[in-house]
């Protein structure tokens, strides 16, 4: 094998491991985000010891960038989809000794570190097994009118099918305690996993909270964002067995 195993304790050269969260694993599905993912990982590593990137067959060198930034990189042999990458990351993280919480985080820099930190603190303080990030608990996040409509429809569908009452669906920022994470077995390889994960977490009947987060819609993330037509794909994927 050409690739050498990564260093046992991931971290940028010279970074101190003192004071970083040792029991939280950050899981980042990664597909062609080479321009931004390095910064995202470096920022996360200032607070969390373990950042796992699942490279989903990127062709732009994202995996190398992530590795250089200090993440533990797991490579899919070829592109399988974001849901598949998320599941691989969760499967890996939940079997790590000492893992207490798993954070799911997007690679494109639209989530904020402070929100992730606060969500872990909330999970600990209120003994919640799951904390969902929500864009709609306050008015900091400014999606366009059309995007808002699509997202709100997704929320409605999710709440109807899962029995939970959430204000946001399809938000990539979540904190999942490892016992809840064991119930996650995503079969939706593509975007419909965001509804599926809520469904599977809801079935655990474990206590959950929502936390107001800000999603940074940069020009970059807007350009990569989901198209409206894609929501039709999500619906079809969800209803067909």
């Amino acid at each position, binding site marked *: 094998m050409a690739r050498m*195993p*990564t*260093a*046992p304790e991931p971290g940028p050269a010279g970074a101190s491991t003192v004071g970083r969260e040792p029991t939280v694993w950050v899981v980042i599905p990664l597909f062609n985000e080479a321009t931004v993912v390095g910064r995202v990982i470096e920022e996360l590593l200032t607070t969390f010891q373990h950042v796992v990137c*699942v490279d989903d067959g990127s062709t732009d060198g994202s995996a190398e960038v992530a590795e250089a930034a200090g993440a*533990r990189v*797991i*490579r*899919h*042999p*070829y592109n*399988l*989809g974001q849901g*598949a990458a998320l*599941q*691989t990351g969760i*499967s*890996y993280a939940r079997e790590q000794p000492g893992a207490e919480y798993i954070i799911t985080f997007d690679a494109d820099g639209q989530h904020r570190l402070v929100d992730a930190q606060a969500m872990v603190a909330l999970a600990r303080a209120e003994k919640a097994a799951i904390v969902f990030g929500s864009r709609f608990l306050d008015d900091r996040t400014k999606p366009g009118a059309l995007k808002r409509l699509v997202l709100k429809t997704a929320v409605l569908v999710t709440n109807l099918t899962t029995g939970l009452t959430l204000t946001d669906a399809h938000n990539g920022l979540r904190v999942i305690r490892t016992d809840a994470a064991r119930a996650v077995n995503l*079969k939706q*390889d593509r975007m419909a996993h965001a509804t599926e994960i809520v469904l599977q977490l809801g079935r655990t009947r474990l206590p959950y909270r929502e936390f107001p987060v800000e999603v940074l819609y940069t020009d970059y993330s807007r350009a990569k964002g989901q198209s409206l037509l894609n929501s039709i794909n999500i619906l079809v994927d969800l*209803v*067909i*067995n």
Partner: protein
Amino acid sequence: MWFQLLLVLALVAIAAYLLRSTPNAKHLAIRRLVVFLGLAAGIVVVVAPGVLTSMARAVGIGRGADLLFYTAIVAGLVYVVNEYKRSVQLARANTQLARELALTEARLQDRIAELERKEPS
């Protein structure tokens, strides 16, 4: 023309099949039975074309060719749905296989790193 009712029912059944059921051994047996029945019916119709016309008349369609056409459309749809479901199943199996490969590689790397930490060479 109660063949219309039959056609609509068949299409609704296909839609339900697409949305609801997951493949199992019973379905496989039914599919194989239908294939054999279809072949047998084909032979009968080829040998005695009059049968098709009288069957069509019986369900309220004028010509046997029309009945054949409708049946072929329904059969084609069933085939498409079956293949679609099969490809979804295969894609899921494929994902699991790829995931196991990725995770096994990761576990191996972790194990090697752990051993190297214990015994620096």
